[in-house]
């Protein structure tokens, strides 16, 4: 069979009519699933308004288990936990929400009210603008920004090669290094964001007055009493169900795995 334009057209029409229903079905199912979760979300909000915080929390957690990765759900779950007196879980959910919506003032304010002061590390003052910029966008937002600059850089380079118009070529010649520099800068922030969110393992202390010890076991000396909601970095692999942690001020100790919950 020869490949004529007519044949190609027929082939595409067949493809569209075969594949499109599959896509439409999948999309409708996904939408239906999301709509179900959304009605659950509204129900949980209503329970919260009625003061039934524990019930609301259960539903929020069910939505999260359903795979929804929405900052509003994490935030509301945090609020329900806070109202129910579970500071550790509240801080945990706020941190989850903050990763997705780093500029959200509500999350930041609630976190500031609940989390212990030790969570705020005192960074060197020259690094503060850098950290502020890094925390301005979520990991995905930095990724998309990098992709955008990569696309623009490649587009300007491609157009520079392809175009025969000298004016466009001149624009592309100027735009390419500019987008390349933007790409590099966004890439640096993406790298640091990735490092702090994915590479560094962060956890929240769930139990109030959790005892941090000098070694992986109850027989070791008690070093610190940590309040619920303390943010720690996990710096070793689990050993006898204990893990070595580092507080934000640099002190290290061991905590049982049962008393912390990993944010990433």
């Amino acid at each position, binding site marked *: 069979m020869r490949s004529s334009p007519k044949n190609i057209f027929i082939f595409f029409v067949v493809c569209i009519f075969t594949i499109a229903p599959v896509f439409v079905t999948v999309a409708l199912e996904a939408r239906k699933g999301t709509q179900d979760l959304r009605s659950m979300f509204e129900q949980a909000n209503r329970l919260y308004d009625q003061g039934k915080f524990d019930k609301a929390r259960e539903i929020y957690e069910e939505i999260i288990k359903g795979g929804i*990765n929405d900052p509003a759900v994490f935030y509301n779950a945090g609020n329900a936990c806070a109202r129910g007196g579970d500071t550790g879980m509240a801080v945990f959910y706020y941190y989850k929400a903050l990763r997705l919506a780093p500029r959200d003032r509500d999350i930041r304010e609630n976190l500031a009210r609940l989390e212990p002061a030790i969570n705020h590390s005192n960074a060197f003052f020259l690094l503060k603008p850098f950290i502020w910029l890094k925390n301005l966008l979520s990991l995905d937002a930095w990724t998309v920004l990098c992709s955008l600059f990569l696309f623009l850089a490649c587009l300007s380079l491609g157009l520079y*090669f392809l175009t025969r118009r000298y004016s466009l070529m001149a624009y592309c010649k100027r735009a390419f290094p500019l987008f390349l520099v933007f790409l590099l800068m966004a890439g640096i922030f993406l790298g640091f964001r990735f490092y702090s969110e994915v590479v560094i393992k962060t956890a929240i202390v769930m139990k109030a007055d959790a005892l941090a010890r000098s070694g992986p076991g109850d027989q070791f000396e008690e070093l610190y009493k940590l309040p619920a909601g303390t943010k720690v970095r996990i710096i070793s692999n689990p050993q006898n169900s204990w893990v070595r942690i580092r507080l934000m001020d640099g002190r290290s100790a061991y905590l049982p795995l049962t008393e912390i919950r990993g944010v990433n």
Partner: protein
Amino acid sequence: MTGVKKRKNIAIYLLPALGVMAFFACMEAVFAQDLQVSASVNQTNIPPGQEFTYTLRISGESMQGLSSPQLPSFENFEILSGPNTSQSFQFINGAMSRELVYSVILRCLKPGEYTIGPSVVKTGGTEIKSEEIKIVVAQGTSQNMPSSLKEENIPSPSASDADLRKYLEGKIFFRTEVDNKTPYVGQPIVASYTLYILKGLPVSSVNLNEPLPQFKEFLKEDLYFAQHLSFRDVRIDDKAYQAALIKKILLSPTKTGRINLDSMTLNIGIRIQRSSRNRRSLFDDPFFDDSFFDPFGRSGERALLSSSVVELDVQPLPTPKPEDFTGTVGNYALSAEVDRNKATLDDLITLSLKLSGSGIVDSALEPRIPPLEGFEVYETKARSEKKITGSVPGGTKIFDYVLRPRKTGDLEIPAISHSIFNPEKKEYVKLTTEAIRIPVSPGTATTPLIISSSAPRGSSSEVVEINADINYIKSAERLSPKGGVPLIASGWYLGIQSLPVLFAILSFFVNRRRIAMESDRGFARRIRARGIAGKRLKNAERLLAQNNPDAFYLELASALRGFFGDKLNREAPGLTIEALERLLEEKGIAKEEREGIERLLETADAARYAPASLSREDMRKHYNDAVQIIQDLGKRL
């Protein structure tokens, strides 16, 4: 025997070693004995507030192993400067001696007899102590003081020159006055520090000595502090003086018993005319009378002037104290008001209790409010507005209570009683407010706040945080889709990222090919050869279908010649079969293939002139042969 010998050998080495150690120990003791430690003060009888110098001298030939001396604690004294150190060396008859001097400048504000403990000097293992020194701090009252002020024990001026001191007695003095020497604890008094100078005394400068008194046993508030001296004329015992108020301060004693009011010290500069009859000091030498040293015939002298120390007898508040007395002393009135006449369960009501009158308003204490039925009471915030009329302190202190109604109906804030001590009347006074009624209607409040820091409410002009609570939940129009893996870690996303890069790379190669085609005609022809030949073959196929052999073979020959002309970069019209044969041979095309091409071209050429001799099948076969040749050689040429 061997053992005895060994012991002898040890003894031989041990004895000299012990000898050396003993020698050094003796030397150390000798050096220690050689050290001389002495402590002294430049004055043992001093008026309150006057500074004096404590000096510790350590002298000796060698000061090896000497550690820093341990100076006494100087309890009851105020250290103004030091310890300052200096050292000196002396060579007498070839022997060197060294002296270390530690000096501390002190002063004492309270009269009494005090002992400065010994200083301790350690050298090696030996301690050497200096002697103790007794200091008498007493008002050095002068006989020349006006008789009406003699009871006040105003100290006479202090100067290095005794003549000057005597000269100044009664002519200049620094007086402390208080309006009440027996106040109640918490009752404000006014203390004034005034400088008096006999008219005509040539005072050139007046400076206040630092540090200023702290008045640690009082609450204090400055009423006046002289930046420039403003003198007024006063007469005391028929003598004309000029008086200048230096400082006026409002004090409220915080403890009972006898308390001395801290003394202040002035540094006075005086230019006095010296007469040759009164020369006694070093500068009394006639040499210094030369006008070169004092063109005005006067010499500058300095004197210290301490204010008199006033003892207060602070009275405790009378007992029994009323139950609703919280410690407020003054002459106040109490009133109560709320910021609204009616409220709902959603509202917060501010109850303000206002104490206004005379007294130190900062020290006025919060009234005890009775249980307020139907209200939840948060913490209180106090604010005060001070007002001093003349030397009488006063003002208003307002205690704001934030109330939240907990039930509906006519709620009442009952009368609040608060007792204060009025020092003028010398009795407790009960202040009472009037009851306030507030109708409360239902509100919409449902959920109680979980975090209640109960911050108080301030004035209406500022934003006041009533409660610290977490922010409300969010609603979402739509929830973000399922996921959890960051974009950067998902394979499909990274795959998409390769597309723009591929586009750029492809563009680069396309551009390179385009440049090559534009600059190399042969290359361009080679690239396009198959395409052009393909089009001609399609035309030939169409002619075959129309059964037009003449045109068909013409198109077929053109396709083949054009193809080889383009591939070999030769002009097609000039490309004879022999030339083509030679060129293909050079390109390494096999003989059979060359012969096939030759035959096909000859057939096509011949058929153009005798088309009837070839059938439709022959035409189809020749067409297929041409397609095959172009397909085969298209890749190899």
